[in-house]
């Protein structure tokens, strides 16, 4: 008697149960399979397309203010950008190619390229993944995910909203976006699995979940001036160059409504317009649905000692992340986010009393290499002056003298918002663009703050591409969505942001005294 093969739904259910067990919850380094004809063509043509763009930029006649290394750096970055988007081979391989190209085109020296792997951000990612592995190992992530589903997961929309609220709560508390991404990633993966979205079988719930979290992590950082270190740099520049002080509540008044409104709009538009979730996928996909989730949750029993230990360790790290402003007074030294995570990792890996063995830590090195390449490229654009030259050309090519305030304001906001597609660092972008925007405001006869503060609100909106920011890299590594999905979702988010900022500039900001009349023309 031959055994009948397992039905597809049973096999899928088996896979979901495995994921729920989280034993195989690793951030895969496998290349995402091309899922449509257009994606296959993109991969096929992306490779020569990237090379073609590289050659085109490299052989262009020398620009007036562009050095040969800046031109070569722009060519290398353009090639990598095309390959990252079209994925002719894995993103981390593209990063390695980019690093090699930066050397052989003499854009950067070996030391500058290799140094990126020692950057704070890479360390933070590495250590945060150790903490994340701890949450997975002690099954705390599973417990939290099941609880979240039981509480809010009867419908896909509510599960998505629960994550929005979670990110909204975390954003003012933890400035490090990578830390927020890593903290909530295990929850996302399990909840996605419950709704049938896995690495192998992507669905629109998964796309919405991960991309909405990306928006939540990045955009909600712009609610407060302490949401990211780049925000604080912008405040400093406004004060030193524009001679205008921005207080905490000044920022919140203008930044929070726009960030929250945009995130809520994307919660709706994502599932209703971009990636429609079919009725069949609106409920948990596990056979047995919520009953099975309930059963799983009940089987977990009361919280075990290991879980409590994990909570204590994570709370210590969280506490250090949240109180970094007081460290100098308390300890005489500032324990930055990576070092707080490092302390957590030491406790987690402590012999006999710790929680993890080194071999149990799921550290996605391919992801760190991908990040390193992106940073090497971004820093090369900055160091060679290519990025600054591009921005100067852009603003220099527009004659904004004598045009109404609203038009100049809209141009500045749009440039600031979409410029993140060409950089990999919020800090670098801020340092390049904000001084130019403040100078432009002065030259046009407007108060510097009227351009600079609304522009500063766009700093954290780095949601367009997987290389645009640290959380982007982390979430993209789950293989739950494509670069094109990310681009679509990110551009719509940024466009909504621009529209809201322009409307606010004409109304809300004007009533607050931040901007002049939209139709005013400077004397």
């Amino acid at each position, binding site marked *: 008697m031959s055994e009948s093969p397992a039905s597809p739904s049973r096999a899928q259910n088996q896979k979901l149960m495995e994921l729920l067990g989280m034993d195989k919850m690793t951030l895969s380094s496998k290349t995402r399979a091309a899922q449509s004809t257009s994606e296959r063509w993109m991969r096929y043509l992306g*490779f020569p397309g990237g090379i073609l763009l590289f050659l085109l930029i490299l052989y262009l006649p*020398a620009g007036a203010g562009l050095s040969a290394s800046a031109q070569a750096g722009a060519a290398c970055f353009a090639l990598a950008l095309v390959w990252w988007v079209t994925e002719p081979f894995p993103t981390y391989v593209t990063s390695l190619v980019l690093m090699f190209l930066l050397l052989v085109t003499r854009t950067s020296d070996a030391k500058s390229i290799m140094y990126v792997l020692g950057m704070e951000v890479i360390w933070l990612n590495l250590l945060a993944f150790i903490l994340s592995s701890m949450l997975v190992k002690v099954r705390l992530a599973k417990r939290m995910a099941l609880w979240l589903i039981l509480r809010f997961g009867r419908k896909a929309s509510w599960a998505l909203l629960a994550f929005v609220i979670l990110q909204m709560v975390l954003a003012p508390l933890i400035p490090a976006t990578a830390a927020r991404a890593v903290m909530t990633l295990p929850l996302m993966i399990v909840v996605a699995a419950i709704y049938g979205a896995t690495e192998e079988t992507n669905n629109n719930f998964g796309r919405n979940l991960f991309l909405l979290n990306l928006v939540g992590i990045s955009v909600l950082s712009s609610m407060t001036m302490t949401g990211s270190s780049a925000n604080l740099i912008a405040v400093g520049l406004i004060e030193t160059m524009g001679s205008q002080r921005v207080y905490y509540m000044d920022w919140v008044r203008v930044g929070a409504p726009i960030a929250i409104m945009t995130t809520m709009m994307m919660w709706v538009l994502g599932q209703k317009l971009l990636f429609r979730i079919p009725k069949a996928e609106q409920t948990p996909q596990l056979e047995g649905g919520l009953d099975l989730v309930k059963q799983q949750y009940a089987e977990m029993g009361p919280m075990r000692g290991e879980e409590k230990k994990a909570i204590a360790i994570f709370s210590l790290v969280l506490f250090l992340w949240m109180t970094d402003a007081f460290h100098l007074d308390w300890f005489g030294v500032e324990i930055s986010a990576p070092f707080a995570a490092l302390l957590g990792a030491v406790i987690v890996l402590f012999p006999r009393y710790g929680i993890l063995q080194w071999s149990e830590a799921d550290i996605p090195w391919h992801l760190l290499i991908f990040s390193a390449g992106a940073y090497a490229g971004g820093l090369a654009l900055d160091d060679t002056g290519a990025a600054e030259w591009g921005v100067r050309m852009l603003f220099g090519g527009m004659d904004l003298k004598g045009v109404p305030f609203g038009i100049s304001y809209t141009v500045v906001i749009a440039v600031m918002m979409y410029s993140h597609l060409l950089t990999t660092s919020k800090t670098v972008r801020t340092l390049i663009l904000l001084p130019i925007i403040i100078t432009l405001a002065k030259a046009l006869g407007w108060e510097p703050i009227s351009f600079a503060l609304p522009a500063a609100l766009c700093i954290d909106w780095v949601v367009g591409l997987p290389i645009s920011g640290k959380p982007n890299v982390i979430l993209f590594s789950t293989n739950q969505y494509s670069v094109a999905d990310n681009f679509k979702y990110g551009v719509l988010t940024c466009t909504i942001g621009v529209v809201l900022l322009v409307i606010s500039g004409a109304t809300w900001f004007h009533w607050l005294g931040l901007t002049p009349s939209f139709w005013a023309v400077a004397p």
Partner: protein
Amino acid sequence: MRRLLVFLMLVLVCSSASAVTTIRNYVTRVDVVTDGSARVTVNVQLAGSQPGRITLPIGFGAMDNFQIKDAPRGVVLKPIPAKEQSIVEIELPDAIADEVRLSFSFGAPDVLGRPKSAPGERSKLPADTSLLRHSFVNTQETPIGTYQVDVRLPDDVRVHKIGEQLPKLRRAEVLPRVRLDRVDGHQGAVLQLTNLKQGDRTSMSLDVTTNNLSLTWLLVGLVLSAGYLFAFRDLVIPGKR
């Protein structure tokens, strides 16, 4: 009486302090020629000019063929070459206008070239790259309002990268310390700094390379593209592997 004396002394000190010739603008244009030497033209604008001698530091060592291009009657310019930084002594006569414009030029050898390596040491510069280094120290008492160096390269070379641009930008400064530009097909660089006090220094170094880009990149790129399109044709043509 004592108060009066103190007051008079203060007035004297203040008046003597204000009666100092200052350099409002100091612009140096460096036209580099193919052999690496340069013709340097200096334009200086003095303000509050007082009779007497002032010393003008020049950001070049050796200098030859010194020529005065523009100077009011009675003003004497005397170049004093030095190994590191030459100087020009400017003698202002008694009846001198408050604002004075001076212009002079000279030849400077080895402005662009390959730095000499120590015996047994390998050069860190690629074979097709030369170095242009300029440094300037304000060795005199009075501040210089604006110091600018405008370098023009020969037409067969371009700047590969700006190796050094000091001092670092102050927080209120927007323009980069060294800005590249192109005039009449010649690429060049402009170094600019304001308010140099005595002892302040500024410097820039440019890695200069040939304008002709090798065709190797093009050939390698085309070969790789063609190879990929053939090897991965199964991506778009099912069954072709």
